[in-house]
C-alpha cells in the first residue's frame, strides 16, 4: 500500500502508482478536510498529482528531495 489512510491524513509512501488515484480521489471526496503527508513520497504518478491539484487538500509535509519537492510545491501551493 503506497498511500496509507490514517484518520484524516493520507500518507504517501515511496512510489505511488497510477492505480492509487481512484482511491485517493474517493478518499478526498469523503474527507474534504483530509490532509496529505508527502514527506516519504519519492514519486507519484501524474494521475495522483492531478487529483491533489483538483482537490487542493492541505499538505502537512513535503518531501526532502529539492527537485521533486519543487515540482510538487509549484503544482500544489496556491499561487
Amino acid at each position, binding site marked *: 500500500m503506497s498511500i496509507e489512510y490514517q484518520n484524516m491524513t493520507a500518507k504517501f509512501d515511496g512510489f505511488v502508482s*497510477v492505480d492509487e*488515484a*481512484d482511491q*485517493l*480521489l474517493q478518499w*478526498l*471526496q469523503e474527507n*474534504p478536510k483530509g490532509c496529505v503527508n508527502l514527506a516519504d513520497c519519492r*514519486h*507519484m*504518478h*501524474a*494521475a*495522483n*498529482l*492531478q*487529483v491533489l*491539484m*483538483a*482537490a487542493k487538500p492541505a499538505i502537512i509535509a513535503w518531501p526532502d528531495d529539492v*527537485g*521533486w519537492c519543487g*515540482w510538487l510545491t*509549484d*503544482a500544489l501551493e496556491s499561487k
Partner: protein
Amino acid sequence: MTPLLKQFIQEGRDFLQGIAGKLIELEKAPDSVALMTELFRFVHTLKGNSGLFEFPEMTRVLHAGEDLLDAVRDKRVPFTQQLADQLLDAMDFVSMLFDEIETHESVNMSHVEPSNELAETLRALIIGEKCADPGPVASASLTVADSLDLLANIPEKQRFEAWRRANSGEPLFLIVYRPEAECFFKGEDPLHQVQQVPGLLWGSVVARNTWPPLTELDCYSCQLDFHLLVAAKRNAVDEFFRYTPEQISIDAVDAYDLVTPEGHPNGGPVYGDFVAEALTLLDNRDYSGLAMAARTMLELSSPEQWLSSALRWLQLIVEEAPHQQELLRRVIGSLNTLQKPDLADLKTAGLAIPVEATPSVAATTSLSTENLEKIHKIISVQAEILALSDAVDWLPGRLKSVAATLKACLASLGEAAEEIDDALRRALAENSARFLREWLKAYLKNQTAIAIDTTAIQQPAGLTEQAQGLPEQAPALTEQAQNLEVENKFGRRSEDTQLSKVLKVDQEKIDRLMDLIGEMVVAKNSLPYLANRAEVQFGVREISREIKAQYAVINRIAEEMQDAIMQVRMTPVSFVFQRFPRMVRDISRKLGKEVELLLEGGETEADKNIIEALADPLMHIVRNSLDHGLETPDVREAAGKPRTGRLILRASQESDRVLLEIIDDGRGINPAVIKQKAYEKGVIDEATLERISDQDAINLVFAAGFSTAEAVSDLSGRGVGMDVVRSAIDKVGGAVSLNSQTGKGTTLSMSLPLSMAVTNVMIIESDRQIFGVPMDLVVETVRLPLAEIQTIKRQKTTVLRGSIVPLVALNELLEINAEPLANADNELAVLVVRVGNEQAGLLVDNFREVVDVILKPLPGELARLKSYAGTALLGDGSVLMVLNPKELF
C-alpha cells in the same frame, strides 16, 4: 519476425508503390479527384498500419504526408511538381525504413532527425503555400505573448541559470507538453517523463482547464499541461519526445527574454545617482567597479524588491558577459524607469549591436524600402490569417498572435497601436476575427489614401476583400471535408470485404507447392514402369491394365495441378513496368531531357521468376536509352525531331514466349563508333574490324567490358551494362537482339520463355549414358550416312539443305574416350542445335524420347559446371543430366 510485421512490410511496399504511381499520374492530371482520393487513402492506411508498431519516425513522416494531402484534397494547397517531389522523397525515406525494419526489425535512432525534417518540410508546404492554418498539429503551441508570460513565471534563480547556459552558447527551449487525455491508459506517466527531459532547468505542472468539482473529476483523464525550460540540443529533445512529437511544442528561447526583473515595484533607496554613476562606469568599461557598485546597492535594498532583482541581473550580466554593453545599458536604464528593459531590438541584432544604436522608436524614419516592404508583407499575411474560419478552438490564441504581430509592425513603422488592443478585446469577447479584420481594412485603406507605397499596399487591400468573402465559404469547406471523411470510412469498409477474396501468400510457399507438384509428376511417371514390371516380370496382366488406368487418372490430375500452380505464379509484366514511370521521370529531369514513356502490353503474363529476372536488365536498358539514346530537347529540335523523346516499353506474347521491346527514337547507335571503340578496348582485333558487318558491330555492345560513354556517370558508362543484360537474359533461357538506325532510334528486343518450371528436353544417348538437351535449342535430328561426312582441316562437316554444318562428337566435348556409334545402316545420329546465331551438329549414339522435366540447377560446387544446365528426375527414378549446348563448344 512476427507474422503481423511481415505482413505490414509486404503490404507497406505495395502501398509505397501505389503512392508513387498515383503521384506520378497526378502530375499529369492534377485535378483528378479520384486519383487524389485514392492517393490519400493509401497514405492514410499506411500511416494507420505503421501506428501498430513502434516506428514513430515512419508514422510521423506519413502523418505529415497525410496532412499535406488532406490540404491538397480540400484545395487549400495546389498540387505542384515540387509537392510531388517532396512526397516522393518522403516515400523514399519510408521505403528505406522498410528495408531497415526488414533486416533489423527496428529503426535506427539516426533517422529521428531526418524524419522530423521531412515531416516539417511537408508541413511547411501546407502552411507555406497558403499561410496559416496550424491545424490540430500545433494544438500545444504558444503565441509569442504566451511564451513571454510563461518565462516571466520562472523563478529568478532558474532564469539566471538559463541565462548563464545560453550565454555559454547552449540553446534554450521552452517546451509545452500537452499529453493526450488517454495517455494514462497507455502506461505513460507524464510527470515522470518530464523529470527525465535532457537539460531540464525548470518545469511546472499546470491544470489545462479549471478543475471540475471533485465528484465529476475523472482522475484517469489527463488534464495536466507541462511547461519546461531546457538547455539542450534540439535533437536530444526531439529524440526524447520521439513518440509524441504532436503533443509538444518546442520554442527556442531568446536569452534576452529572460532578463525580466521581478518583485515589489515600490520602495527602496533612490536610484538616480546610482544610474548616473553606473553609466559612467560602463562608459569607462570599469566592470569590476560596476559590479562592486551593484553589490553595495543590493546590500542597501530589500531583496524582494523589483529594483533588487534588476540589480541582481545587472550583477550577473557584468560578471558573465561584460561585453554586452547595450544590454547592460538597458538594464541600468530600467532602474531609472522602473520598467522592464525593452530588449526586443537587441534580439535580432544579437551581440554585435553597436553601443550607439538608436532606440527603436526613433529608428522608424530610417527604415529602408526593403524593410518597409517586408513589414507590409507581414501585415498582408495577417490579413490572410484573419480571413480564415473562426470555427476553431485556438481562435483566441490566433487573434492574440495577430494582434501582437500587428502591434510590432506598427511600432516599427512608428505608428500608434492602441486601436489594435481595443479591436482585440472586442474580437476576443465575441470570439470573432471580424473586429481585427475591420480595423486592418480601415488601416490599409488609410494607407492607400496616403499612398506611401502603393505597390505594397494594393496587395493587402485585395486580400482584405478576399478576406471578407472567405469566412462564409470556409465553414462549407470544412463540412465538405467532414463529408468526405465519412464517405471514405464507408468506402474502406466495402473495400475490405473485397480484399478478403485476394490471398497474399509468401512466394516461398508457392515454390514449395511447386516443388511438391514436381515430385508428384515424377512419382506418377514411375507407374508405367510398374505396370510394365507387373506384366513382364510377374505376368499379371490384369493388374498391369489397372495400374495403367489409374495412371491415366493421376496423370490428368497432375497435369491440371501443374497448370494451376503455373497460373498462380503468372505475374503481369506491369509488375516490372510500374517502377519505370518514376525512374524515367527522375532520370530525364536530372539529364535535362524531355521524355514521354509509353508502356504497352503490361497485362502480358509470364512466370514470376522470369518477370523478376527481367527487372534488372530492363532497368539497364532503359537507363542506357535515356543516357545515350535520347538527345536533349535542343539537339532533337536541331535534328528535326519533336523536342520530347519517346521511349516505348512493349510486351506481347508469341506462342510460348514473351516478347519485350524497348524502343526509343533517339540518336541510334553508330556502327562506326562502336567498331572503333571495340577495337580500342581490345574487344575485336584489326582483322575483325575490317570485315565486321554493321549489324554485328552493333551487337558488340553486348560484349563484356564494352562501354561507349565518355565519362563514367552514375547512370551508365561503367562498361557493365549490356553484357550483364545479355547474361541475365541467357540465364532464364531468353534471347536478346538489337536493331538501330543512326539518327532514328534503337530497338532492343528480348524473347523469354513464359515459364521456366517445365522444360521440354530431348533425351540422347552417348556411350551408354543418357543426356538431355533443351528442345528450344534443337533444330533437327538427322541420320547421316558416313559417306556424307567430309573433313575440312580435320574438322568434320556436312552439307545440310545447302549449308555447311560443323559436326562435333559429344563424346569428344565431354572428354569421353569413345567413338560415336553408327547404327546398322552405317548412319551416324546428328543432333543439330542452335548456338547463338549459328548451327552445329552434335554426333551422338542414339535419340530417345522428348520429355517434360522439372529442371533443377546443379547445387553448390557443381553449379560451376557450366556445360550442364541442370538435372532432372526421370520417371524410373534415374537422374538426367541436361546439357547446356551454348557452353559446350
